[in-house]
Structure formats: structure tokens, C-alpha cells
């Protein structure tokens, strides 16, 4: 799922501004559409950061409850509504990770066993290596890599979500990949 495919996420500004107005008035059809369009991406984002189905489910659902509470204060600035939902999700994920502390799983072992790869052990090790390295990155780099390569969003879509220019996203991606590479020990490269 991409930001573009999220029908209500990147419509013309006037159209989305009208949707926001209706949402503020409690229009259930607008909220339902937003939910149906954005929930899958938010779930996957939360899952990629929390590595647990229940947590991802909670966060994705909680995003909309928080949004309902905050819509009165929300000022539409022309950015896709998904950007706002993503911001809420990011905040909820950070809070949940702080609360979980060191008990947060690096990878969902159950998930890995559900989707076995040809070389299971190597995949699991690679997964753990990369996730561990990701945790050591700057949040800005980690978010960029998550959105680009775990959620498969295009540079344009990420730019819309983060409120940056597309060219800036490519530059940031280069720096983020370089930083991740440096975080992976040289003697572990053969697992990748």
C-alpha cells in the first residue's frame, strides 16, 4: 500500500480540507474511509517498530482514537492526512517502546517461523543483525529506512509523509544506508 493508493490521503488540497472539516463535525463516513485507507499502513509501521502483532494492532487502532480526540485542534496545512496519522503512530510507538524498555523484542520469532525462508537460520541472523543495527541509528535515519524499505513507500510518498522534498529524501536515504552499514560488524556481513 502506498500513500498514493490511499485515496483520501493525497487528494487535491481543497478536497482534503473539506474532508477535514467534515471529520471535525464527526462525519463517520470520512472517518471510516480514512480508517480503511490508513489502517493497513499504520499497522505495518507499528509492527515494523514493535515486532509484535498485538502491539501493532493496539497502536494502529489507538491512532484513530487519538485523532478523534485531537481533530478539533488539527489545522490542515496541505499535507496528507496520513502524515498526521503517521505522526500520531510514531509518538505512540515511541511511548510503547519506552514503556517496554529492554523487553521489547528485536524480532518476532513467531512471525519468522511462520514465513520460513530457504535459508532460515541465515535469514533470522540477518534479521536480528539489521534490526539491532537499526536500533542504534538516529531516529531520522531509522524512520526513513523503515518507510522506504520495510513499508515500500516511494521517495515521493515518504517526502509527503515527512514534509520534505523528494531530493532531500534521496540524500537522507544515502546517509541512512551508510550509517546502517557502519553499524553492522564487518565479520557479520556474510549473513546479509
Amino acid at each position, binding site marked *: 500500500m502506498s500513500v498514493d493508493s490511499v485515496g483520501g490521503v493525497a487528494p487535491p488540497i481543497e478536497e482534503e480540507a473539506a474532508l477535514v472539516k467534515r471529520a471535525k463535525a*464527526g462525519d*463517520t463516513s470520512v*472517518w*471510516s474511509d480514512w*480508517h*480503511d485507507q490508513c*489502517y*493497513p499502513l499504520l*499497522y*505495518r*509501521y507499528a*509492527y*515494523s517498530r514493535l515486532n509484535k*502483532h498485538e502491539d*501493532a*494492532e493496539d497502536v*494502529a*487502532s489507538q491512532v*484513530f*482514537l487519538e485523532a*478523534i*480526540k485531537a481533530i478539533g485542534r488539527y489545522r490542515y496545512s496541505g499535507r496528507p492526512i496520513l502524515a498526521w496519522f503517521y505522526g500520531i503512530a510514531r509518538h505512540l510507538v515511541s511511548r510503547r517502546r519506552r514503556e517496554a524498555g529492554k523487553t521489547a523484542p528485536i*524480532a518476532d520469532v513467531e*512471525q519468522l517461523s511462520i*514465513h520460513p*525462508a530457504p535459508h532460515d537460520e541465515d*535469514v533470522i541472523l*540477518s*534479521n536480528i*543483525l*539489521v*534490526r539491532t543495527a537499526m536500533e542504534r541509528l538516529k531516529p531520522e535515519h531509522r524512520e526513513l*529506512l523503515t518507510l522506504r*524499505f*520495510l*513499508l*515500500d513507500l*516511494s*521517495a515521493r510518498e515518504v517526502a509527503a509523509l515527512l514534509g520534505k522534498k523528494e*531530493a532531500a529524501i*534521496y*540524500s537522507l*536515504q*544515502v*546517509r541512512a*544506508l*551508510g550509517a*546502517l*552499514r557502519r553499524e*553492522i560488524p564487518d565479520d557479520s*556481513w556474510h549473513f*546479509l
Partner: protein
Amino acid sequence: MRLGGGDLEERLAECSRLFDETGDVARCLALYPELSEELTTRLDVIGSLSAMKPPEAPSASQSSSRRVLLSSLAAEGQKRRGIMGGLAIGRVAGALAVLTLLAAGAMGAGAASGGVNSPGLVNDVLSAVGITEHAENHGSDVSESVQEAIEATEPGPERGIAVSEAACEAAHDRSTLPAGAQNAPGQEDREPKDCAHPNADGTPGAGEGAGKPESAGKPEATGKPESTGKPESAGVPACPPARAAQGAC
């Protein structure tokens, strides 16, 4: 091969853009063959990241979340309607509270200033809220009359009598009462009260209490039904002669 500097970053960014467009690194390598090693390493990292893609959201989770959302919207709508209703009631209650405070404040201010001119503000408030259209300053007339009597007499019994009469006359002067009070049923043709003090001529015991000095100046006691058990003003007889003549008491 390690390349450094901002130039490398620019070229790699350009390669990333080309890779997104074409889906392979051929064009990038054609442009920048020196980036071969760097690109290979980065593609490995990207491959590892791509292997960690999260699963799709289960449809049951999405349906459940949708239900929670809709019920939350309904609750929020009810809350909003409740707040609006509360605001309307609150406005009325607030207006009444302000009015009450204003009236109480005016009366309190009057009391603090010794009663002088106090009814003016109260009257203003009452007039403002439509309780009375116009009310003369009845209370201040009484206090002014008393003050004048004090100033016009020497200390002693004479002053007491003068003050008593002045207070009585001013208090019973119905012309300074609000129109509503003046025109109340049974009040229109009422005779003015006779405030002449029984001792005004200097002789004690001209009234009901004559020959009973212990009762002079005190509230009438039981056994005198004329008094109806209510205390009269100091020095004022229970039944003034003029009213006794009319058979009013």
C-alpha cells in the same frame, strides 16, 4: 573502493533515483562505474531490510479497529452534544449567579458604608433587572432625617424625642416608597402615621404606658393585645392617639 565527500552522496542519491525509475543499477553503473562496490554493499543492506517487511494487517484486526472507531465517534458526538447543552444551561445559571452576586455585593457595600445611600445601588440593580422601575431612596431619607434631628438638637432627652419623631415620620413617609408599594392593595388611601411623641411636651405617661414607668420605652408586654406583641420603636407609644381615635388599635 571508498569514495568520500558530498560528491559521493550526490552521485549515490542520483543512483537511488535512477534505481527507483528503472528497477536496476545498470544506468547508474553506466554513469558512475566507480560506484560499483559501494552500490553492491548498499544493495545488500537494502535486501536485508526488505527481508524484514512486516506482515499485512489481519482483516479481523482492521474490522475490530473500525468498530472501536465508530463507537468512539458516537461517544464523542454524545459528549459534544452534552457539552453544548451544558454550556447553554451554564450560561443561564451564570447570568443568574452574576445577578445574585451583584445584588448581594451592592447590599454588602451598603451595609459596610453604614447604611447611608445604600439603597441607591440596590435600587439601581433592582431597576436594571426589571424588578422595580423606579424606587426612591427611602432608606437614605430616614437616615438623613435622623441626622438632621441630631444636628438640630442638644444632647439629652430632647434629642431622643426629636430623633424618634424624625425617624418615625421619615420611615412612614410613603411618598418615597416605590410606586408598587404605594399602590399596594389597601395602601392607597392610608392615613399618614401620627409620629408625635407622647412626651414631646415634656410630660411623661401620656400614652398607654402612663403610670407605668417601667414599661416606658420598652416593648409592650403581654396583656396588651393592641401591641400585637411586636416591639414598637423606642419612645413611640404602642398606639398613637390619632390611631386610637380611629379605632385602629
